Structure formats: structure tokens, C-alpha cells
């Protein structure tokens, strides 16, 4: 504790040296390299085609307009995509939290026969997998292809998140669970009424991780779904920006949502609309992952 106090005082008394200015300048350049492309995208989405043609370097539009957004939403496919992604989250998040927390709590218990084997089964999925074809055939056998459930189920468990949660559960004081057990509570009861209330930070982190993963998922949907009106937001966005512009060769018949030409403004509006929720949740995400949870998970 005293060490951290001292080190902050050390930082305070130091003056800005040439090294500090150098670092500051390099980091400002790096930050601008990241920010400017986004600002450009946002500016274009709010500008008129003429203003964009006159000045592609634009960062702030002089005459902001919502025309691109109106055109985007009147097309409707983006709203369908939004709704499908919300369905993914509404069904996927509770399911993934149930699967992850029950297994994480089970594996965080004291030794029991088969614990090592089961943990190995989880770990092995991180270094080896069957690949897309067998998974597709399994989905087909289960009659899940063509249903949003295929995407929900595939994304509902991640070994990485489970191990993160397990590490956290292991750090909780055993005495609390022991006393609940003496009161006659079963393991499920203990999980729900003792462990989960104590695990709010990790539950928030894992919820955000699954949420971002569902929000960003598109590959499974591209493989498993058939109809345009089933596709989640990312696939709709892909149809709008990537396929309409260039990808004749890569275009799959599946996500051929928007074949009509989209103006640049509308494309950028679509990018912004897809990005906004992540921007809103990002500060929360950062608060959680910054604490080194990740290094804990990598080394198990």
C-alpha cells in the first residue's frame, strides 16, 4: 500500500522531460489515427452527398442532415437486423449465464471424482475443434439450421468465460458456502442465493463479454440461416457495405439482403448505427477488464 502512495508522489514531483513530451506526441498521433477514421465515418453519415464530394477530408459536416438515416431506416432491413440481434441477446444472455455459472460453480468446488477430467474436456475445446462442416451437419441433424436458435446455442458457452468465472468463484471464502450447507441448502440453492450475490463484478464482466460476442457474431448466422429476414444486424451491415460495393466473388447467396446500390452516406449511417451500442457500453467494459482479470484467465 505504502509503495503505491510513494510511487504516486514520485510521479508528482517529476517534471516533464523530453521523454515525456516524446511519449505524449507519439500517443497523440496513435490516438488520432484511430479517431479520425471514425469521425470521418460519422461526418459522412450526417452530410449531404454534395458536401462529401466537395470535401472527403471532412471531420465535421457544416450542414448536418439526417437524410442518410431516413433513407437507411425506410429500407427496413437494418431494423429487421436490429430486432434479430435483440432476440439473440434476449435468449442468449440468460442461457449463456446459466450454462457458464452452473459449470463454473461446479468446477470451483473441492475435489470430487472426475473433476480433472471434466476440466480437461473444457480446456481441450480451446485448443482443438471440429471445424465448421461437422458443426453444420450436427446442426442439420438437430433441425436447427434455418432457425435463430442455431446462432443462440452455438454462442451460449465459452470455455474462456467459464474459466474466468471459475477463478473468481474459487476466490470466494469457502466458509460462507459451508455454513449454507450446514443449514441444509443444496448446491443449486447455494449458487443462487450465496455465490451469485457475491459475484456481481464477474457476472457483469461475463455478461458484457457474451453480449459483445452476440452483437458481433455473423459467421454462424451466415452459415446456418437461410432467409434474409432472419439475419442479425452484422450480416445486414455486411450486405450493405461489403457486398454491394465489391464482393461479387465472396457474396454468399445467404446474406443477399441489399442488392440495390447504397449511397456512401447510407453505408456510413449503417456503420454508425451498428457501432453505437458498443460505444455506449464500452466505458463499462473497460472498467471491468482493466483489472487484470484477463491475465488471470490466460494462465490457468
Amino acid at each position: 500500500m505504502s509503495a503505491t502512495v510513494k510511487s504516486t508522489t514520485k510521479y508528482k514531483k517529476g517534471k516533464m522531460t523530453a521523454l515525456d513530451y516524446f511519449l505524449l506526441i507519439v500517443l497523440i498521433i496513435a490516438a488520432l489515427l484511430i479517431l479520425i477514421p471514425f469521425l470521418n465515418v460519422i461526418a459522412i453519415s450526417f452530410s449531404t452527398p454534395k458536401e462529401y464530394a466537395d470535401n472527403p477530408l471532412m471531420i465535421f459536416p457544416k450542414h448536418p442532415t439526417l437524410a442518410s438515416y431516413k433513407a437507411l431506416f425506410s429500407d427496413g432491413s437494418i431494423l429487421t437486423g436490429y430486432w434479430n440481434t435483440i432476440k439473440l441477446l434476449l435468449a442468449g444472455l440468460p442461457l449463456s449465464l446459466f450454462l457458464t455459472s452452473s459449470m463454473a460453480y461446479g468446477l470451483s468446488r473441492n475435489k470430487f471424482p472426475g473433476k480433472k477430467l471434466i476440466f480437461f474436456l473444457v480446456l481441450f475445446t480451446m485448443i482443438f475443434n471440429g471445424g465448421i462442416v461437422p458443426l453444420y451437419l450436427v446442426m442439420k441433424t438437430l433441425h436447427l439450421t434455418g432457425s435463430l436458435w442455431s446462432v443462440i446455442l452455438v454462442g451460449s458457452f465459452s470455455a474462456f468465460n467459464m474459466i474466468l468465472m471459475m477463478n473468481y468463484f474459487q476466490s470466494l471464502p469457502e466458509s460462507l458456502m459451508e455454513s449454507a450447507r450446514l443449514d441444509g441448502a443444496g448446491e443449486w440453492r447455494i449458487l443462487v442465493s450465496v455465490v451469485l450475490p457475491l459475484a456481481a463484478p464477474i457476472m457483469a464482466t461475463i455478461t458484457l463479454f457474451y453480449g459483445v460476442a452476440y452483437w458481433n457474431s455473423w459467421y454462424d448466422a451466415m452459415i446456418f440461416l437461410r432467409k434474409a429476414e432472419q439475419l442479425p444486424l452484422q450480416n445486414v451491415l455486411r450486405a450493405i457495405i461489403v457486398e454491394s460495393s465489391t464482393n461479387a466473388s465472396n457474396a454468399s447467396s445467404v446474406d443477399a439482403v441489399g442488392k440495390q446500390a447504397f449511397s456512401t452516406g447510407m453505408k456510413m449511417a449503417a456503420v454508425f448505427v451498428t457501432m453505437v451500442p458498443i460505444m455506449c457500453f464500452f466505458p463499462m467494459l473497460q472498467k471491468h477488464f482493466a483489472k487484470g482479470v484477463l491475465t488471470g484467465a490466460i494462465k490457468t
Partner: protein
Amino acid sequence: MKSAAIEESNGDGKGSSKIKTLLSEIWKHRMVYTLLIPGLIWLIVFAYMPMGGLSLAFKDYKANLGICGSPWVGFENFTYVFRDPAFIDAVWRTLYINIIKLFIQFPFPILVALMLNELRMRRTKKLFQTVLTFPHFLSWIIVSGVVINVLAYDGLVNSALAMMNLPTINFLGSEKMFVPMIIFTDIWKSTGWGAIIYLAAISGIDQDQFESAEIDGASRMQQMFRITLPNILPTVTIMFILSVGGLMSSGFDQIFNLANAATKNVSEVLDVYIYRITFQSATDFSFSTAVSLFRSLVNMILLLLADRVAKMMGGDGLFR
């Protein structure tokens, strides 16, 4: 309740009593097993059944017979795979891109972490960290939307070049620019996130080391090279192992979304090849499964090898 009963089973005693203690142990923990059942069902259905499906690689898949009913053909599929020039090209291209990434891209997060750590203004540091990690949380579809806009023929970068009377560059549609563009955009997206892991490692270093170095009159540069870097070396090793383990899988999301008709000759890495032969050309599930199996096996072997090498060199491995 504690582990005493289990320790007992290691001791002497006849086989039957061992089985009895095992069974009673299992019975005692029956509630714990019910906790594991939902997760195990998921693993079996969505991870291990597909792994079983890898047997397709050694079969001649007939849709009407199913995976189990299709006849065995041994390694026949693999001989076809290794004779396909597109497959060989895809393998080399994947290795080529990943090895370049390993050399050029790998140091960036370490550099950024060191720079952020040396920065004295804490608020500003937070702000930089926020900006730099943001792109990691966006999908490659969003990022390619941004990239295609900025690097397009009439986009931000080329307009700026034209304004300065410099020659414009065809970033997106030229074979020569494809790999540099892929590597640059990947650095752009993932460096900040990679730096977080190193920053966490740096924050775990014992502060006393820096203080005694300070008292001994070590400069900040000296402290960086003599204390910070050696202390985060285990983390560097782990990240390196992970990168080597991924040599055969090169960001499908990125390449699939940034490639186009003009770059199709240089963009077909292994994952894109697998996608194409599986879902676009005449579908031969046995053939694509053989390719997938090859890829998964090579990845696993590389990961385990890198892990072994790291341990032999006295570092920490991935698995203890």
C-alpha cells in the same frame, strides 16, 4: 466434507473397497454433478459431437447415409487435398501472412504498453487507453466499413495524398498492397487490446524494485530495460506461444471482409479456402472436413510445441 476421504482412497485397501469409496464419493457429490450437467450437455453436443464428425475426413460422405453410415475410405480424401494446388497455395499464404504478422505486429502492443506505463499523467493515460482499445470491440464487418471508406480511391487518405500532390495508392484493389493493408489494419484494430494484457503484467511488478533502482540513480530508460521488460517476459512468452499456435488460422473475419474480386488471387488463406470449398463450389463435405482436420491438428501441434519450447528455455508455459 473436505478432501480427507479422497486421500484415503490412495492408501492401502483392496480394490473393492476402493470402488466403494469412489462410489460413495460420487454419491456424496451428486449435487455437484447436477451443476455440471447443463454445461456438459452443451460441450457434448456443440464441441464433441462435431469432433466425432471429423471422422468424415476418412469417409466418403453420402447425405442419405449420414455421417455414421457413409463408407470408410481411409486417407483417400487427404491424398486429394494434398494434390489440390489451391490448398497448397492457401497453406503457404496463411503461413506467409502470419509469420510477417508475428515479426511486425507482435512488438506493437508491448511498445504501446511501455509507453502508456511511462506516461506520467494518469487521466490522459486512461483516455489514451480507452481510445486505443475501442476498435477491438467492434466486429471486422464494422471495421471494414470504416477501412473501405477511409482507404477507398476517393476516401480520406487518398484525398489527403492528392491534396499534397502525392501519388494516390490503390489500397483495397491491388494485389501488391493487400498483405500490407491486412497487417496495418490488424495493428490498428488490436494493438490497444494487446497492450492491456502487458499493462496488467506491468502493474503486478513489485514497486520496491523501481524504488531501489531510483535510489541507485537508475534513469527511467534503464528502469524500463532492466526492471519492467524482464518482469513482463513471462507474459510476452505466453502471448508468443498463442501467436505461434495460431499460425494456421489467419483472421478469417478480417480477410473475408476486406478481400474483393481484385485481390482474390492473394487473399485466399486457409480459412477462406475452407469456406469456399465448403459452401460455394461443388460441396464435398468429406474433402472440406479433411482440410479442417489438417488445420486443427497443425494448430494444436504448433501450440503444444511452442509451449514445450518455452518451458525448455526456462520460461512459463501455457499449461502447468
